[in-house]
């Protein structure tokens, strides 16, 4: 089922690559290149799924996720963390802040698409 996916990542090339994959699979994509912009986009666009980077210059992905989970309108949106900082503690923290899935970069596109498709609010 086509979904509206919000990608929050400070790397434009990553946003572009994810966008291509998701659009080809039939999903609608909205984008944000910082944590703050991501929160604003989530409030304005009410996506079905959010793909979230962790290391970002303004506020990091954990904080974005915490704020999403604290907002009753956004709390139910599944968050897929996609991070190049794949250590034992980062994935643990990603789940603890309310992330549904943690995928390490470099990712397999199949894993991203599976996660988006199986993510249920």
């Amino acid at each position, binding site marked *: 089922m086509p979904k509206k996916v919000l990608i929050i990542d400070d790397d434009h090339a990553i946003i572009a690559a994810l966008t291509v994959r998701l659009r080809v699979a039939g999903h609608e994509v909205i984008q944000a290149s910082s944590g703050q912009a991501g929160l604003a986009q989530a409030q304005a666009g009410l996506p079905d799924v959010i793909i979230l980077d962790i290391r970002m210059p303004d506020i990091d992905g954990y904080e974005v996720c915490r704020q999403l989970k604290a907002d009753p309108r956004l709390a139910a949106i599944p968050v897929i963390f996609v991070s*190049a900082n794949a250590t*034992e503690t980062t994935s643990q923290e990603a789940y603890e802040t309310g992330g549904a899935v943690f995928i390490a970069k*470099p990712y397999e596109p199949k894993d991203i698409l599976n996660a988006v498709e199986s993510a249920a609010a």
Partner: protein
Amino acid sequence: MGVDNPSLKILIVDDNPDDIQFYTRVLSHDPDAQYTLIESEVGEDGLRLYHEHHPDCVLLGFNLPDMDGVEFMRRLAQEGDGSGCLPVVMLTGQGNEAVAVEAMKSGVCDYLVKGDITPDALRRAIRNVIEKVSLERKNRQLTQELQIANDGLIRKNKKLEELTETAHRFVDNVAHDFRTPLTVIKEFSSIISDGLGGPVTEEQAEYLLFITTATRDLAQMVDDFLDSSKLKARVLRIDRKPHSVDGVIQPIRSMLTTRASAKKIRVVERIQPNLPQVFADAEKVARVIMNLAVNAVKFSPESSEIQLWAKRRGSGCVEIGITDHGPGLTEEDLAVIFERFKQVGDIQRASTKGFGLGLNIAKELVWLNLGTVNVQSQRGHGSTFSFTLPVCDQPAIINQYFERLDELSEPPTHMVVLQVTPTVPLGDLEPLRLFLASACYPMDLVLKVPHAGSILAVGSTGEPQQWIKRLESAWSANKKKRGAYDLRIHNMAWLPYAEIKKTDLMLALRHMTELRSCA
């Protein structure tokens, strides 16, 4: 030493001419030493002479015209360099205990009652005082030197900790900064080769596959590099818990097939049905399988087959392995293959990539997962790399755990066993288990205590205090970050390691149960 000094400087502070005469006579007839005597009848002058001449010993009368002996000592200590014991023998005509106690409290080294003094007693008292003061000075100097050395060590240790922390952060940052552009390169080459940017010729698709494969290799090397440096520093976190074998393989299945397909190699899975759950860190085990598989693919001929298999091994283990149809290994290769930065020799070198870390990391990760690696290979007949993992059964796990500790070059002398419970029922103990797993060192063990609503942590560090301290600092960091739940160290046992081994491998668990009943 002062007693061997042929010339000792003695200050006599006394207002009784008979006594002064007696001291002078006794000392001038001493065959073992020569004395220079300085005399004063009053305290104030005596203090001045003390500072002027720095005598080896003072003979101090208790009753002086201007002050008593205790006041003299107080002033001496006050005006002195604070170096502690003063070389003073107090002499008094009043042989009562109260005066003696007061004199000793004031800091004199010895106390004699005038009427009872023999020449020998006086000489002995002087010598003892000089020796005592000299020893005390030496002692103080040594203590100071020790303190300085200790301070230096503490500073160096702190610096070292900071450096280690910086190095780890650096490695993490490097890995992060490598992986982001790697993702972009890999993703866009794959997007183009998938035809998402327009039609691609067969030739272009082949070139793009080179890029994708090379990028994957580079990503793998970054992972190896990261794991290897953490393994070396013994800071790699191990989060062992129950997993099905399929649950461990699932996340890497597509990556494995993709890598193999680049050489048209088929991956055949032979997983024995109804395997028990294993107790392991799934992510680390997946890395092991990946490293072994990547090696197998690397050395396998095109269009061949590699097998990924798993089977029960004895009652306590599951064995997982990769079998290839590559060139196999020589005996010399087999001897060194798991060493850091080693790659197998001669003809194979041409086709190998990487730092030569893959197998070493695989071995270390298996070791930390309480298993062992095995390799069977013969030149010309392919290779089988396999490893064991303990099944998820507490006696089996503890058994393997102790085997690991026995293999250490310096086995622990003691073990600390903690039973930790959340202060409020969490429903699920997972957050607490996760916290403990992240606070523990790789060689520590975290187990759920069945039906006890708590977690058992077994550590093999030298000092229980260190263990608790580490837990507490991790705890305060945890609270700051998450602030959710609180824990209580329910029970703690500090057990001699040898005893645990000799008696029963389940002693740790049983011990906790016993402690619980008396807590």
